[in-house]
Each structure stands twice: as structure tokens, then as C-alpha cells.
């Protein structure tokens, strides 16, 4: 238990995290490239086509990972919000600020791929289907947090206000999800729903697993780098940031 306690204590100082996470971004980046590359190649070229949807189902190899990462980004933001409000940890605020653009673009990707996936099977660009609808709501939740952070000038207040909003959003996500699903059963004409892909043979879900892991590594890489830059920006008046800048530019 002691190790966790000291680790938690150390996390309180952004500088410790900055030094410690120097190589994370690179490691995550390489892992992401490998996993995503392998998963995409396998999914695109080698996995068998779906008997109902034909080859358009390959979009799933993008849609599912990005949707998962998008939802976990919002979850991370909510948890960072709790940590910020309860333990006043500055690092949590930097993480919450850094995750908004990434989460937003992941949701955007999931939204586009979801919509495009529906086109061949239903002939329309937009389908009111559980996947696309929940991604649309998540997109607006992200935009809300981003807009609030942008609207408040004082940094500390903006961080705490966004923390409250993220927590409220996090609590509401399951409620929204289930009411949307219930609403879909009310209006869903076709019984076939794209949500649960039919039980897939291993040659189909293996690339999916690779892509999901790859997307999470991508999230790790981009997030670490964004957090480290955020730390430098927050601590720019301190002496150690000046040293870092000199070393970097020397």
C-alpha cells in the first residue's frame, strides 16, 4: 500500500510526472503503429467478408475501436474531474484539458465511420441507429466541455468548472444511452441492429482486437505528449521549465 501512497503523493507534482513520462509517448507511438498497422492490414485484406453486409462491414475495424476510445476518453475526463475536485491535483486538470481535442476527434471519426457504414446497407447517409446516435450525443458532450473551458478566462476556475460538467456528463451517459436504446426499439423498423455484430469467427474479431489495442496505444501516445506540453504551459513561470526549454533548444 505504501508504494501506491507515495506514487499518489508524487503525482501531485507535475514536474515529477514530466520527467517520468519522457519516453512514454514514443513507446505508445511505436506500439500504436505496429498494432494498428497489423490490425488494419489483416482486417482489410485477409479477414473474410460478412455474409450479409459484404465488405462494408470492414469499416467496423475502425468504428468500434474509435467508439470505445471516445467513450473511455470521456470517462477519463470525468474521473480526472473527480480527482481534481477532491484532491486538488493540478495534473488531473492538465489531463482533462488535454483529452478534449483527442476525445472530440475520436468521436468524430466514430460518427463518420458509423454513418458511412450504414450507407451500403440502408442507402442513406444517416441512420438513427444506437451507434451513431450515442456518438452524436457524446460529440455534443465533448463540445460542451470544450466550449465551457474556452469561455472561462481564469485557468483554475475553468478547470474546476469543466470538472463538474464532466462528472455530471459522466453520470448522465448511461441514462442517455439506455433511453436512446429504448427509444430505438420504439422506432426501429428493421429487427437487424448493427450494434451487436453477429457472433464472429476468430479470423474476424482478431484484427478488431488488434485495432482496439492499437487505438488505445494511440490515445496513450497523443495524450502523454499533450499532457507534458500542458504541464510546461501551466508551470511556465517556474525555474525548471526554463531549464527544460534551454536543454530542448540547445
Amino acid at each position, binding site marked *: 500500500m505504501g508504494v501506491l501512497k507515495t506514487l499518489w503523493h508524487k503525482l501531485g507534482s507535475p514536474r515529477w510526472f514530466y520527467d517520468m513520462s519522457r519516453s512514454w509517448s514514443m513507446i505508445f507511438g511505436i506500439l500504436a503503429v505496429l498494432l494498428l498497422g497489423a490490425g*488494419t492490414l489483416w482486417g*482489410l*485484406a*485477409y*479477414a*473474410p*467478408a460478412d455474409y450479409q453486409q*459484404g*465488405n*462494408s462491414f*470492414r*469499416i467496423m475495424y*475502425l*468504428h468500434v475501436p*474509435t467508439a470505445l476510445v471516445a467513450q473511455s476518453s470521456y470517462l477519463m475526463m470525468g474521473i480526472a474531474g473527480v480527482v481534481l475536485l477532491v484532491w486538488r491535483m493540478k495534473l488531473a486538470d492538465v489531463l482533462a*484539458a*488535454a483529452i*478534449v*481535442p*483527442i476525445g*472530440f*476527434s475520436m468521436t*468524430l*471519426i466514430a460518427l*463518420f*465511420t458509423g454513418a*458511412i*457504414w450504414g*450507407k*451500403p446497407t440502408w442507402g442513406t447517409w444517416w441512420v438513427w441507429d444506437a451507434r451513431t446516435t450515442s456518438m452524436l450525443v457524446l460529440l455534443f458532450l465533448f*463540445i460542451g466541455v*470544450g*466550449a465551457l*473551458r*474556452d469561455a472561462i*478566462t*481564469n*485557468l*483554475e476556475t*475553468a478547470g474546476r468548472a469543466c470538472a463538474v460538467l464532466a462528472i455530471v456528463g459522466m453520470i448522465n451517459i448511461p441514462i442517455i444511452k439506455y433511453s436512446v436504446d429504448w427509444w430505438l426499439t420504439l422506432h426501429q423498423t428493421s429487427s437487424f441492429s448493427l450494434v451487436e455484430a453477429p457472433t464472429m469467427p476468430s479470423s474476424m474479431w482478431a484484427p478488431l482486437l488488434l485495432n482496439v489495442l492499437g487505438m488505445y496505444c*494511440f490515445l496513450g501516445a*497523443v495524450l502523454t*505528449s*499533450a499532457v*507534458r*506540453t*500542458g504541464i*510546461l*504551459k*501551466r508551470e*511556465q*513561470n517556474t*525555474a525548471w*521549465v*526554463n531549464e527544460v*526549454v*534551454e536543454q*530542448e*533548444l540547445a
Partner: protein
Amino acid sequence: MFFDSFSAFLEMGGHGFYVWLSFGLTGLLIIGNVVHVRMARRNFFREHAQRQTRRKRSGTVPSNSGQNQQHKATEL
């Protein structure tokens, strides 16, 4: 290889347009994210270096008086 030829791979039984469109968009946005993050880092170092040189020229101690730092760090 599931497809017998490269052109079949491109055409993907008629669904190629949608598959490649979504992969293209995703690639675009992912690269956009990476570039955005790297640029933010580079810009910070450039700006900070300028601030340092300005401070050295004007000889003031790294200012930490004055109001809570109002600089907004994030962008959407």
C-alpha cells in the same frame, strides 16, 4: 489474401468507396491529431524561448507577481 487480385481488393465487391472513404477520413483525423500535438509542443518552446530572451533583455526576474496567470493553455 481474401481477395484474388489487387483491383478486387480496391473494388471490394462494390463497397470499396465506402471502406476507403472511412479509412481515409480516419487517417486524416489521426494524423491531424498527431500534428496538432507536436505543433503545440514546438510552439510552446519557441514562444517560451522568446519570453526568456525578452526577460533577459529587460533584466526582470521571471515575473510571478501580478494576477493569477490568465494565459489560456487549451484549444479545441
